[in-house]
């Protein structure tokens, strides 16, 4: 009965109800689209950071991340191999790659430059990161390439070298002795990320191990994990590996600023959501309150006939919920359609690429929305519709039948 009466009352003032539903739907669809853009940018940033080079999880010798040194290296111990094997067999690891890195002085024809010299296993790296896709000129490393290197575009420019040129790397080996070798430049990376383009030289892992007297030794194990498994794999690895020998760090343990930035931007969106919710609630309250005030006499008659205030309040709240639910349905439809559309065609931010590339944002943003954000937003709008009924309900609760019946 409550539902039927509420629905008929909404239909009775259908134009006003339509405007209210449209306002709710517009607010919600705008929020969903903005979340879609926001999540698209954030997820791209976080994915790119992990997929380009950092990985989702890195395992190091304890304290290596804070104080990198060849003396803090790892070997293929049974403990490490067992932990990695367990992680791989869980089916949650997409790729796993061992790396060796050290600081080196790179020399071109006339100029020298300090770089990170990074040894990569090309086959394992191809399954773990997308660094090979960032090669802009030449090619990435291949198996059995020998002494070849890939440089960041800025580093190559600073050194004054181009494809086919030789680059000399001077560093210290594991025992502190000077080590130097000549590498042929076969590829140049343009990632847009300053750390990669300006300060990185990539060479084959086996060649670097030999050069640094680090055969069978690594400084990092990099794992690529789907976001939903990140925490469980981290927990599993931490429980399998002795923390005195190994540190297991998630991408945001190593680069907390990006996650903090995402959290900060999300916080701004929640504030924006709150403002929109206030507007939505005010719109619904206006409609329901006007509808209630127009029917004071009818409410008085219903009370005289024996209808309890509880039933009347129920009718008012159901009216508000119907308006909210219709607005949420239309808003979800429009908002998700927009998100789906721009997920396909993308939003071109090429004009702003100089600014955004360094934050791992792609030139075209493809919208996507996290389920949590979607349901939080839709649920909040629905909750606002319910809260909006409180003022009309309060007015109903104060009605006296004899006064209400004679209300003009």
């Amino acid at each position, binding site marked *: 009965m409550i539902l039927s*009466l509420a629905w008929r009352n909404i239909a009775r003032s259908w134009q006003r109800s339509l405007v209210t539903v449209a306002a709710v739907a517009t607010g919600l669809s705008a929020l969903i689209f903005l979340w879609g853009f926001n999540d698209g940018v954030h997820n791209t940033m976080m994915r790119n950071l992990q997929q380009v080079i950092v990985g989702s999880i890195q395992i190091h010798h304890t304290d290596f991340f804070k104080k990198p040194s060849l003396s803090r290296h790892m070997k293929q111990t049974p403990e490490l191999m067992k932990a990695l094997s367990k992680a791989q067999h869980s089916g949650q690891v997409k790729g796993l790659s061992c790396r060796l890195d050290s600081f080196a002085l790179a020399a071109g024809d006339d100029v020298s430059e300090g770089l990170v010299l990074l040894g990569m296993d090309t086959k394992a790296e191809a399954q773990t990161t997308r660094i090979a896709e960032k090669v802009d000129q030449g090619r990435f490393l291949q198996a059995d390439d020998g002494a070849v290197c890939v440089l960041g575009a800025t580093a190559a420019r600073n050194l004054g070298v181009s494809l086919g040129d030789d680059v000399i790397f001077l560093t210290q080996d594991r025992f502190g002795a000077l080590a130097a070798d000549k590498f042929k430049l076969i590829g140049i990376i343009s990632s847009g990320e300053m750390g990669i383009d300006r300060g990185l030289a990539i060479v084959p892992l086996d060649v670097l191990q030999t050069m640094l007297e680090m055969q069978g030794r690594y400084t990092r194990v990099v794992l690529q994990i789907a976001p939903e498994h990140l925490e469980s794999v981290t927990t599993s690895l931490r429980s399998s590996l002795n923390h005195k020998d190994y540190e297991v760090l998630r991408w945001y343990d190593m680069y907390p600023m990006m996650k903090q930035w995402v959290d900060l931007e999300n916080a701004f969106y929640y504030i924006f959501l709150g403002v929109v919710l206030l507007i939505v609630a005010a719109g619904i309250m206006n409609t329901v309150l006007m509808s209630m005030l127009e029917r004071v006499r009818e409410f008085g008659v219903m009370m005289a006939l*024996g209808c309890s205030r509880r039933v009347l309040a129920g009718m008012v709240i159901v009216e508000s919920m119907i308006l909210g639910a219709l607005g949420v349905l239309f808003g979800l439809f429009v908002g998700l359609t927009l998100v789906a559309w721009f997920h396909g065609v993308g939003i071109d931010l090429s004009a702003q690429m100089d600014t955004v590339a360094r934050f791992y944002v792609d030139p075209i943003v493809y919208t996507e929305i996290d389920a949590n954000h979607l349901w939080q937003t839709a649920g909040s709008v629905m909750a606002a519709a319910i809260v909006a009924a409180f003022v009309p309900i309060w007015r109903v609760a104060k009605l006296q039948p004899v006064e209400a*019946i004679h209300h003009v």
Partner: protein
Amino acid sequence: MSDDMLLQATDVCKYYHSGDSDMAALDHVDFQLKKGDFTVLSGRSGSGKTTLLNMIGLLDTPDVGSLDIAGEDVLALSAAKRADFRLQRIGFVFQAYNLIRVLSARENVAYVLQLRGMAKKERLDIADHWLSEVGLKGLEHRRPDQLSGGQQQRVAVARALASQPVLVLADEPTANLDSQHGESLMNLMRDLNERCGMTFLIASHDPVAMAAAKQCVHMEDGNIVSSDIV
């Protein structure tokens, strides 16, 4: 209270505040109704008849006095229990019909039965029966705005009677009707009173209503000044 007594109001007073003074809308009124009565409360506007009707209908409370209906001290009931008492025991017919606009004639009549929790088929059957009793067979599905004033008031009567209340209260039921429809409505209510035995208390200054009454109680300035058996 004797077995055939339905209602007893004793020493009922109701004051309205106007500026610094109190105005007595009801001034120590004593009033009784027996089961099966068809009583008209008459008097000019402001004489207190609607106020008394509102007290008896538990829509308002007296400042002083006692009120027993069907053996129950109704002034001792909470607001929720009064609503339930109205639902179970009292039927209302209002001057302005006061049908629920979004419901059909049939649904308006069935509404009170629905509030009582009656099953859908049963309440719609009863609604159809009472609409037929008041001469509106065939108009069950019309909305109030599709009915004439006289027809709307008949729906209101059917609504008041459908729940078989012990007491039907009508406030100026003929005020918005022309004399022909007014007389027809009063005859209908009197006929239902005689056939169904329901007790009617009608507040009206319409001579047509007074002519249909078994008992006519006249009020002036918040007092009952005469009571005549017709």
